């Protein structure tokens, strides 16, 4: 399949670039790929990394899920209904640009130091990205579609179900892609308290010890985790957005 080949070529190019840069820089801060891949395979083989991988995956996915469950419906309503948009947008604009990781102490007070705080923090950060993307997507639906719905006597809920949601779906998938990147990228932060498991923990722990090979093993694992999620998402997109492909 052409797709598999493209991925393979991309991976090769990335590793080669990495190798060349590592050789040129010759610095402990960028180990060579073979060192990292050997470390990665070793840790996978002896099972150490497997747990971390799955626990991080779970945290990221649950965080994204939590954010979507709230942000998508809200984004659809805020985007599609101008009166809501006017009222809610100032909140988004005031609350989005603050660094939510700094609110960690607050999150801990509210939800304790368990898993939920971690998932909540991921959800909180992803939430705004999903909200803004969904809102902007729903805003740009052509008025004629609303007219068609209206002439068919749709209730407001039906308008969301049959028009706003499917029309915004491609943008929601974009939001999902951005979320995956963000959620994984902030694991290193949310896994720096009250846990000794997870790719984020590995990264911070090795970074603290200046163990750059482990650090890059963590990064490498995250790239793979993200990649797997992206592939899944592409599958989903091919299914739910069939109508865009056939045209």
């Amino acid at each position, binding site marked *: 399949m052409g797709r598999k080949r493209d991925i393979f070529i991309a991976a090769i190019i990335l590793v080669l670039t990495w190798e060349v840069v590592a050789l040129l820089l010759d610095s402990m801060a960028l180990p060579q790929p073979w060192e990292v891949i050997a470390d990665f395979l070793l840790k996978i083989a002896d099972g150490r990394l497997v747990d971390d991988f799955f626990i991080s995956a779970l945290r990221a996915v649950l965080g994204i899920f939590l954010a979507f469950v709230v942000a998508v419906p809200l984004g659809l309503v805020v985007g599609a209904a101008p009166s809501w948009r006017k009222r809610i947008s100032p909140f988004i604009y005031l609350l989005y640009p603050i660094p939510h990781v700094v609110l960690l102490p607050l999150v*801990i007070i509210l939800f304790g130091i368990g898993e939920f705080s971690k998932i909540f923090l991921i959800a909180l950060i992803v939430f705004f990205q999903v909200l803004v993307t969904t809102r902007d997507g729903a805003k740009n639906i052509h008025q004629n579609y609303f007219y068609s719905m209206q002439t068919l006597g749709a209730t407001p809920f039906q308008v969301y179900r049959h028009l706003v949601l499917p029309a915004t779906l491609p943008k929601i998938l974009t939001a999902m892609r951005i979320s995956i990147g963000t959620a994984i990228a902030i694991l290193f932060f949310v896994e*720096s308290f009250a846990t000794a498991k997870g790719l984020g923990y590995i990264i911070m*722990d090795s970074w603290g010890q200046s163990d750059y090979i482990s650090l890059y093993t963590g990064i490498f694992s995250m790239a793979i985790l993200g990649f797997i999620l992206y592939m899944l998402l592409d599958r989903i997109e091919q299914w739910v957005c069939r109508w865009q492909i056939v045209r």
Partner: protein
Amino acid sequence: TQQLRIGLLLIEDSIPFWVAEQEEYYQAHNVDVQLIPFLSALERDSALAAGAIDGAISDPIGAILFDQGTGRLKITSLGLGKTPAEGVFAILASPKSDITTVEQLKGVEIAVSNSTIIEYVTDKLLQSQGFSPDNYNKIEVKKMPIRMQMLLSNSVSAATLPEPLASIAVAKGAKILLKDSNAEQSLSQTVIIFRSEVLDKKKIAVQKFFRAYGDAVNSINTSPEKFRALFLEKGRIPAFMADSYPIPVYPQPEPFSVELYQPVIQWLVTKGLVNEIAYAKMVSQDFMSVQSHDD
């Protein structure tokens, strides 16, 4: 003239560096020193790894972990911490917990930062009280402010914190159970480290730097109050303890001693974090010999 870029954390240990700059001792000794502030050890170590700074203020654990026996850097001098009294770490109990004695820490989770001086001091303090490693549990919380907040909100019952956070926590009701300033021997020190490459290539500059540093130490020790404003600013001392906070007596730069080195490397080896590294490989003696004691 050769330039030295030195990474500093905003702690009281780095005051002599700033004093030397303010009093123009670097110029006096004909060395160009650029001081670069960092908010945490992580960014400092990154800059060090990248070679963007030549030297830095650090702690022995961090320095040895960074080096891993590769000879990338050397501990060039001791900063604060020669005597136990200069210790800055404390194990505290949460305001809302009923822990009041060290004994009650048994079986309790203590928030620390793994593989750092924090964990080291915690182990040492508790073991000096007769605790065995399985008497207590450590819970990992990397970021200092979060650890403190968790302590104050009773998310954890105990935590190890450095000054000035320890004092702030006490002001908020936390109870000090153990302090390394009360220990029988010095547990925590700061050290000045340089990359080995720099020590080779800019040997003279480093020597001059230490002379300037020594001058600054003298100035501070002679009239500490003159530098209180600078001390409060660069040491990031909270306003509520600004006036009462004692300005420590800074020691002249001197090599990091074997006595201080041994327990640290042993702890690291026992934990499996590094392989044994010979004292002479890690610690440099060269730069103090030229030190003039002109006070």
